[in-house]
């Protein structure tokens, strides 16, 4: 067997025994200009792994060290006050021959949720209402690894075939009593195909399957002399409060989706890509190790689509257009009865238009404006709480990349956005006359109904070392500040997102 096939097979086999959610990527507010301009193909628009050869990274070894810190009280109840992440990853792409390309990555990740109330479910920001925690606020940490393998091949000059696997495992620990532990496993697999209709137009399809398991265990700490109250949520109010030290929760999540992809490129004058498809996510939650019983079922049927296009009216001017939408229809079923616990349907549309001008070999700059619209209509039948929000986020940003010398360049961007929510409402039929402020989880609703301003600034200096490769630093600062009176004065949410990237010419 050819050596390269053996290497590939070993990598894939090892991937199947590990896992992870996505490796962190640097924050990029632009979808049409600057770094995003190279991402107009079906690999990025639709996530089709058959188009791996159009992925924009070079055939170098990428070593990334990432840090993310988001902190502040402008947040949902389920969100920790501080969300911190540390990550080290290695990734690289290699052409196996003229027809095949492989890309793999491996990362080690540590996530910290600091000062978090009640929740211990890791992904409590999802819409799944079945969450669990305990009465002791504190810090949780999740240590894990992430592996990703992608393979793309050209077949008979007209066909493309690709697969990708993302695998992530981690273990969680709440650092304060009662010291619950958890483990998570996430697998995402994609199978993509493509057909080259002619030299300009290609279309394809991608089938995706992801599987996520969360196991929470409240049995490890037998400190009998302190009382533990477990919280089991099914809605915004009326959590089940259980005086109990031992409990196990299993949450299984399957997500199936499929997309049609299309991309077009015409002599570097016009390029565009679109995707359209949908999927279904199903989550089943069960409690108890020995005799598991249902805590609920959650389902989301969704449709997604989008377009990303670039037009070059003249050689040094790019006009970019970006549109993305998703329509979600989700509901949850009672654990024991054939009744709906909640229902939420919301569409979200994002439109952006940008222009980028190349002034010289050393300088190019651009501007982008966008609108992000969503319309939430949430019905919590369990708690008899109904709320609506229609946020519209308008943004404008600009950036410039300047080559200071032969080896050194820098990208600077700034983005301002204003979110304004209309059609806000809150009804509590179990406690008529009360307002959202009387609800323990009020911030889970207020967050969506808030007007806020967002300011983001990014600096990305790069230094080329001829024989070595490249060193690149991404630093982004984001500040979200609410404008409504519903939040106390001075409340904000700040983010520092940093990545240090080394690219090594080792292949």
């Amino acid at each position, binding site marked *: 067997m050819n050596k390269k096939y053996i290497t590939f097979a070993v990598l894939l086999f090892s991937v*199947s025994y590990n896992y992870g959610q996505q490796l962190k990527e640097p924050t990029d507010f632009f979808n049409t200009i600057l770094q995003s301009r190279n991402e107009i193909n079906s690999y990025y628009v639709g996530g089709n792994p058959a188009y791996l050869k159009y992925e924009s990274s070079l055939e170098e070894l990428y070593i990334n060290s990432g840090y993310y810190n988001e902190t502040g009280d402008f947040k949902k109840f389920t969100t920790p006050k501080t969300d911190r992440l540390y990550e080290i990853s290695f990734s690289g792409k290699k052409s196996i021959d003229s027809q095949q390309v492989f890309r793999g990555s491996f990362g080690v990740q540590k996530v910290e949720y600091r000062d978090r109330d009640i929740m211990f479910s890791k992904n409590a920001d999802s819409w799944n209402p079945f969450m669990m925690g305990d009465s002791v606020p504190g810090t949780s940490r999740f240590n894990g690894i992430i592996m990703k393998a992608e393979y793309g091949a050209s077949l008979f000059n007209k066909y493309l075939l690709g697969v990708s696997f993302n695998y992530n495992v981690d273990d969680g620990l709440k650092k304060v009593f009662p010291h619950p532990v958890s483990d998570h496993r996430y697998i995402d697999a994609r199978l993509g195909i493509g057909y080259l209709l002619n030299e300009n137009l290609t279309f394809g399809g991608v089938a995706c399957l992801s599987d996520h398991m969360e196991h929470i265990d409240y049995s490890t700490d037998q400190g*009998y002399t302190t009382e533990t109250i477990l919280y089991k949520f099914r809605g915004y109010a*009326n959590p089940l409060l259980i005086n109990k030290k031992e409990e196990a929760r299993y949450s299984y999540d399957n997500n199936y989706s499929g997309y049609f992809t299309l991309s077009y490129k015409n002599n570097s004058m016009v390029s565009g890509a679109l995707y359209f498809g949908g999927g279904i996510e199903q989550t089943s939650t069960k409690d108890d190790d020995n005799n598991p019983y249902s805590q609920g079922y959650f389902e989301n049927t969704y449709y997604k689509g989008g377009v990303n296009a670039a037009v070059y009216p003249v050689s040094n001017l790019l006009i970019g257009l970006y549109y993305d939408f998703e329509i979600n229809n989700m509901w949850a079923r009672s654990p024991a009865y*054939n009744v709906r616990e909640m229902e939420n349907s919301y569409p979200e549309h994002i439109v952006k238009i940008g222009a980028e001008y190349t002034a010289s070999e050393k300088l190019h700059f651009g501007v982008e404006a966008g609108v992000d619209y969503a319309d939430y209509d949430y019905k919590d039948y369990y708690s008899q709480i109904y709320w609506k929000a229609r946020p519209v986020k308008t943004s404008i940003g600009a950036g410039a990349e300047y080559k200071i010398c032969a080896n050194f360049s820098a990208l600077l961007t700034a983005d301002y956005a204003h979110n304004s929510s209309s059609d806000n409402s809150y009804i509590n039929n179990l406690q008529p006359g009360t307002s959202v402020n009387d609800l323990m989880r009020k911030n889970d609703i207020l967050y969506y109904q808030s007007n806020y301003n967002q300011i983001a600034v990014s600096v990305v200096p790069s230094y080329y070392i001829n024989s070595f490769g490249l060193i690149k630093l991404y630093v982004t600062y984001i500040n979200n500040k609410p404008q409504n009176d519903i939040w106390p004065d001075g409340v904000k949410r700040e983010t520092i997102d940093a990545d240090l990237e080394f690219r090594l010419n080792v292949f």
Partner: protein
Amino acid sequence: MKKIYMIVIVLPLLLLAGCDALVSTMDKPAAMERTGTFKIVLKDKSGYLQKVYGSNVVSNAEVTLKSSTLGTEIDAESDSSGTVTVTGALSDQYLIAANRELSANEMLKATGTASVNYKLTNKDVGLITLDASSNSPIQIDMNAALGSSPLVLSELYVCGPSGAGNYYHDKYIEVYNNSDSVLYLDKILVAIVYVNSSLGISYVDDPNYVHTANIWMFPGNGKDYPIKPGQYVVCAEDAIDHRISAPNSIDLSKADFEFYKDDAPDVDNPAVPNMIKIFQSSGNDWAPAAEKGAIVLAQMSADSLISFSNQYLIPIDKVLDGVEYLDDVTQLSKKILTPKIDIGGTGGIQFYTGKSMERKIITKNGKQRLKDDNNSTLDFQVYQHPSPGYHNN
């Protein structure tokens, strides 16, 4: 290229091997939670109301529903058609207690005797399901029964005190005279209901007997130990002042009775009469389980107990009162005491928290009574501190 095809085929298989469970698809329910209107219809099966009023409709009955999951209580009264209407309730299993007093006049017309302390109650069905996806009314059959047992277990304190490590010697039960007459405790049996949790063995479904491997008896020969109406009697694991070893505990040195195991290194307070051990298969002291268990009072001759394996059997009709407590009160499916004695379960108390389970006080016909509808979910309340010899209220 064939190798590529093989890889593409094998990869999904590897993925499936890595999945823990495939989630079964469910249809979207048409009904929505808490939006249903539930109707419960009460019917008299004793025939008394038919004789008195020409109808078996049970009107003006007091009905209490308690959600087994959330613990929320709903109080209602049946209307003139014997119907209780509940709106906005969560779909759940509900413990139900429906009672309608039968007056002496009604008993005279129904039976020819002006008996007192009789009522119509839901003896056979204590657990119902309210399901918002169903519109069918639920019929509850009511039968005539004597009022509550005159002798009841009024308090169970079994979890141990807080702040004293694993100290657990201050457990006690409290017995109460819930009648208007003097009663006698002599030879009344106190039994802990048998369960083997590790092997998953319980006899909750035995229709005739309560199984026990731990039986003690009040001393006396008939009328040596009277208990006056409204009197509390404390039976302590160790009748000593536990505050010496556990500051947050209680003084049980003046308990009325003590469980002293003379074949073990147990504490004996000579000033307190000892309970008589009939049978205890294990342990150095009388020590009911701290988080979940059941205790019954029975009136029968100890000589009539039926031996069964390493247990004894108490006929259910000899049981005066019984109480079950659970670590998770939402899990009534894990009960070990037959619903014929106690349809519910109190508790939800963890080890070493100093909490106690005590019957609620109610007022009936102008008199103070302890609630006894044979449903400890509804009859009991958890208090932060034990109250030996008195009520927390």
